[in-house]
């Protein structure tokens, strides 16, 4: 197990190296020179080609791509993530440090609730197959999958914030500042972010659960005199979650993707917006830093998913 984790971590390092190198090259291929993007009307004439070359030189942008990458990597390892080209006083590590907890807060809640609610709906639908509870749960799951996040966000905002005035329209408050306000502000974004995953998880859980409750060992469990709840939770659920875990691992990526939209609609200062704005502005150091961090998170969640298989299914061996 330990060897397996170590081996996977070493793999992860290579994956991250390849990922960051590709992104490093790709952002430089994007059209648009980041040096030119945020100029003032008065300073343009002072920007002679020589001055631009000088600025480029100072930023190291005139060097060979591989050399630039090497320098960036070296700096990263020493804790210097560079500075934003756009927000000149903003240290990339600090920016990510500010934004990441927000997206993680949002993402963890979305992940948690989509998993819990999705699995519950799926289990109810499977156990009550063909009855009204199944119909309702399946309907909810299908609706959840097909609903467009953007539309849902705006509709909820109109209903719950503008009409009913129950929830704040938008914004973010850190949880340690004001727990109640923070939670109220996050209700709608979390619903938007989790809704798709919720549907996917519910449907998959239902299918997988239906498969599992037909198994011989479930009959055995019944023959032991166990309650239905004990059978579902102890005997069926763990087995039926094995395929669901894979999908939940994938949801981490979708949550980062969905965060781009949700953070924009609800004015939440998270990684999604940071990334989009950085790409728009060709803000190389920010893009690179963010990709690295998100890459690490995705690689780690994959690892956690793979390790958790072992907990769900003792037949899985790590070699």
């Amino acid at each position, binding site marked *: 197990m330990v060897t397996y984790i170590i081996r996977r971590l070493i793999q992860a390092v290579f994956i991250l190296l390849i990922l960051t190198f590709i992104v490093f090259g790709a952002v430089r291929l994007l059209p648009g020179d980041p040096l030119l993007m945020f100029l003032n009307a008065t300073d343009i004439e002072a920007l002679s080609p020589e001055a631009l070359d000088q600025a480029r030189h100072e930023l190291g942008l005139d060097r060979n791509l591989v050399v630039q990458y090497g320098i960036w990597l070296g700096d990263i390892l020493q804790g210097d993530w560079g500075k934003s080209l756009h927000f000149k006083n903003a240290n990339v590590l600090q920016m990510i440090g500010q934004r990441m907890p927000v997206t993680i807060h949002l993402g963890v809640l979305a992940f948690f609730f989509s998993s819990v609610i999705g699995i519950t709906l799926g289990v109810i639908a499977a156990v009550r197959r*063909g009855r009204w509870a199944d119909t309702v749960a399946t309907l909810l799951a299908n609706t959840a999958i097909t609903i467009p996040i953007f539309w849902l966000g705006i509709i909820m905002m109109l209903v719950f914030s503008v009409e009913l005035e129950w929830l704040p329209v938008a914004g973010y408050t850190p949880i340690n500042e004001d727990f109640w306000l923070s939670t109220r502000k996050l209700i709608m974004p979390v619903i938007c972010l989790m809704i798709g995953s919720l549907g996917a998880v519910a449907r998959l859980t239902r299918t997988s659960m239906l498969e599992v409750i037909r*198994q*011989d*060992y479930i*009959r*055995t*469990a*019944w*023959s*032991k*005199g*166990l*309650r*239905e709840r*004990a059978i579902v939770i*102890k*005997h069926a659920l*763990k*087995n039926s979650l094995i395929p669901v875990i894979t999908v939940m691992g994938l949801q981490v990526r979708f949550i980062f993707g969905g965060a781009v939209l949700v953070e924009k609609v609800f004015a939440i200062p998270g990684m999604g917006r940071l990334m989009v704005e950085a790409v728009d502005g060709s803000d190389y150091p920010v893009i690179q830093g963010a990709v690295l961090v998100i890459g690490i998170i995705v690689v780690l969640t994959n690892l956690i998913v793979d390790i958790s298989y072992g907990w*769900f*299914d*003792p*037949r899985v061996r790590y070699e």
Partner: protein
Amino acid sequence: MTLLTVENLKTYFHTDFGLVKAVDGVSYEINEGEIVGIVGESGCGKSVTQLSTLQLITSPPGMIEDGKVIFDGRNLLDYPANGPEMRSIRGGKIAMIFQEPMTSLNPTLSVFQQISEMLSLHLQMDKETQRKRAIELLTQVGIPDAKRRIDDYPHQFSGGMRQRVMIAMALSCNPKLLIADEPTTAVDVTTQAQLLLLMQNLVRQYHTSLIIVTHNLGVVARYAQRIYVMYAGRIVESGSCDDIFNQPKHPYTIGLLKCVPRLDEEEDRRLVPIEGLPPNLINMPPTCAFLPRCPYKIDRCREEPWPALKPVGNQQVACYVDTKLTVQ
């Protein structure tokens, strides 16, 4: 003393293709300490009969339409399928062992977890006692080094060992009745014999009754005191083991016996398989289900409905033909 009496049990499956009368008026009984065999080809309804007694039929599509299951003086079919009364009987009073040791144990729970949940449920044991008892049980069923292996998962055991675990589990709460549904079908012949012997010893030791459900007459021959032969959802013949083996009355039983090798017989006897295939249980004609395959059929068989069981000698037989006269 009669422990379990099943009367006129009918279990039907309402499928998309039509009505399947899997169990169609089955009656049998078992006494305390007795070993009874229920024999029949695959798909004849013998497993469904046993599942029905414990109301373990998946519903829908399965439905117990009629009948009584009298156990300890109570009709189990009066209780709701998954209600507390039924649950206290399952595993506690009546335990089952299933055919497939590879799939009948939960792959994600350790052997200890699977045994201990019964101990805590039916005997309210604490964790420590559960562990001691589980180790004891596993030792009894012949699992070497039980202390160490108790936390292993099913996939770490061989097929025979898993069936031993199943037996240990089934016996863990001292049930009055053990129903073994094809307990040895999936294991090799040597293991088969060991397991049957083990079961026989254990039920004697615990004074537990045992129903062995099997398609293999040879299996029951050695262990069962009485035998019920089932065909197409009905019991076609019943009687003591000796009688059935020595004087089979029903053409089906005769056919079955012809395809079982025997050590006590003249040499060179050819094993003769029963002609034809078991019937499809969907939308059966009212006549005897064995009719198409029966070598003894007479006109009456075609004209009248399937006969009820009636005493013939020491046995009960459901047939119009006096096979004694026609057997070569």
